[in-house]
């Protein structure tokens, strides 16, 4: 359960709209069920009351929408940002992707988002309602007379299990309590894969990526992927690919994307969250983050709004290429 209520956020947004500070509100909209929220723009108090919601399923990171919305909408846009979303927000600012003046950012606390697929794995099909309690969710289904209680911790999304920060690194206003930067175990899985032999690693990724349907949702949702025209969509690029073009091409796409966002990926987790095929894309990105940390010193993309990423920066104590051996940094 979240510690701030939909009602309090709604009221604050309505008053900012009312007094003219902002012209629109970027938030999450209620769906057919309790878990199918859609990012949406609200421009009137009634719209907010009717549709706005902040709950355990407000996973969508709204910062990328600012690119489009700040260009489309006259006046300021109020955006609600969870702690991890603020890193994407800053990173986009570092890259000058939207006009900061056009945004009014409200930081809101997050106690972790729930993954509906994990809930389905536990309760089965036919979920009709989900009630949030303090540390658990009461799930009503078509097939059980009594609601089933699942603990929030058990159904956290992958990125929330490895939350890197409860602290907001950017905002104009904060609602609720501020948190702290956390020490997460987010590199544990990466280490497990590093420990595999090259063949095993290859087989692991082969298997995971074999499910890819090349919907490109990972790219489309990624706040670091903001090219006006992605090479993979561009018929003139020579590498446009609409379909999974075989094992080689799939790996190429994902590796190229991982390289392209390296140093700019804040580990926001959107790519893995949106992937309809459940491919653990975060592992690729985290491998890059981990290598960069080890090679160039600790670096968190999006921590500030004017950073230079390690790969586009230069310092005299950068390691020599000879220090970096095939297959990663030599830790010996």
């Amino acid at each position, binding site marked *: 359960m979240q510690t701030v209520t939909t009602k309090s956020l709604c009221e604050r947004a309505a008053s900012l709209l009312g007094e003219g500070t902002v012209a629109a509100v970027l938030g999450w909209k209620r769906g057919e*069920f309790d878990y199918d929220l859609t990012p949406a*723009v609200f421009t009137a108090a009634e719209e907010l009351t009717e549709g706005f919601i902040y709950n355990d399923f407000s996973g969508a990171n709204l910062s990328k929408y600012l690119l489009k919305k700040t260009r489309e909408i006259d006046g300021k846009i109020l955006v609600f940002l969870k702690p991890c979303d603020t890193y994407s927000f800053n990173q986009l600012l570092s890259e000058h992707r939207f006009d900061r003046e056009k945004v009014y950012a409200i930081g809101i606390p997050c106690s972790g988002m729930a993954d509906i697929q994990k809930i389905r794995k536990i309760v089965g099909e036919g979920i009709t309602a989900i009630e949030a309690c303090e540390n658990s969710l009461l799930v009503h289904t*078509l097939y059980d007379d009594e609601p089933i209680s699942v603990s929030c911790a058990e159904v956290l999304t992958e990125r929330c299990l490895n939350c890197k920060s409860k602290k907001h690194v950017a905002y104009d206003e904060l609602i609720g309590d501020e948190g702290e930067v956390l020490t997460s175990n987010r590199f544990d899985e990466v280490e497990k894969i590093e420990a595999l032999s090259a063949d095993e690693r290859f087989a692991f990724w082969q298997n995971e990526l074999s499910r890819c349907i090349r919907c490109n949702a990972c790219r489309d*949702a990624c706040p670091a992927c903001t090219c006006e025209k992605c090479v993979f969509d561009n018929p003139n690029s020579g590498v446009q690919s609409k379909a999974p073009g075989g094992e080689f091409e799939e790996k190429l796409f994902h590796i190229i994307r991982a390289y392209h966002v390296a140093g700019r990926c804040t580990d926001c987790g959107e790519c893995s969250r949106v992937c*309809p095929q459940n491919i653990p894309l975060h592992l690729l990105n985290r491998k890059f983050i981990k290598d960069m940390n080890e090679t160039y010193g600790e670096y968190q993309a999006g921590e500030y709004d004017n950073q230079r990423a390690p790969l586009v920066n230069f310092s005299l104590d950068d390691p020599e290429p000879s220090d970096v051996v095939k297959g990663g940094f030599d830790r010996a």
Partner: protein
Amino acid sequence: MLKCTLSNIDKLFEIVSASMPLYLPTEDKNGAVFKKWQPGTVWSNASNTVKGPKDLFFPQSEDLMAFKTEGKKIEVIDTRTETEDFAVFGVRACDVKSLEILDRVFLTEPRDSYYASRREHGVIISLACNRPTENCFCGTFGIDAAEPMGDVSAWLTDDALYLHANTERGQAFTKLIADLTEACDDSAVSAQKEKNRKVMKRLPLADLEANAFGGSKTEQFFHSPQWEKLSESCLGCGTCTFVCPTCQCYDIRDFKTNNGVVRYRCWDSCMYSEFTKMAHGNNRNSQKERFRQRFMHKLVYFPENNDGIFSCVGCGRCLAKCPISMNIVKVMKALEVDTDD
């Protein structure tokens, strides 16, 4: 009606597999998917598979032909592979219906011989839904999940699988497994159908109606102000089209190899910016227009050209898979509000 006790089900799969490849739902990391049965494969009765059986008839990408060049000589190479009989088990009522919709597209002139030959070689064993999901709304399109069609219809009770052949191909299939089945009356199946229909009535989307839509409604919905709102956060990822059992758009491309060309086709999506790009450019330049195309096609254009038949079967996959949870149900509800005004 034929009955096969559940304890014999793996034997049944084994016997079928001995004479042709058998595809059935099995649990993958990401949910149930149609896979070829092999000894040890565990059949999944999940409702429903992540993607429908469409891939087996119209794969996401397939080679159409190849050209080999030697100096000025071009040789055309036949790369076709879709000539083998196969069986698909566990196809839900919505997905059986989705194939009828694809038939209307691919089997009318000019006939798509690749699809046609897969259809001719495939035998479909459907399966009634005992536990539909909250996203299911096949009833909206007149589909009865308790009465799935196909070459063979099947029902599952606690202890047995019941089968009924509807076509000649279906009869050939039931003959294959004759040793494992015995004839029985309809009582167990009737009772199961009753149960299933009761559940269908309690589904959250049971009341959704499609009456407001259909051919000849283009004018009414095309300019609806709702499209702007509905599409505002669409990522244009096309996941909805890829998981949809009735989406049928494809692109044909050439892949250049060292000494020739492979011509293949792959699924395309109206949600993509480069979809149906023509010499003058694109005919749909905003995501709103692309988004509108998908839903207008399902709810208006397709029925317009196909005797009023909608090209959505209510399988609920776009509800389950859209990364921003926008889907045809939300679209229908929003547009209906429009008609009320």
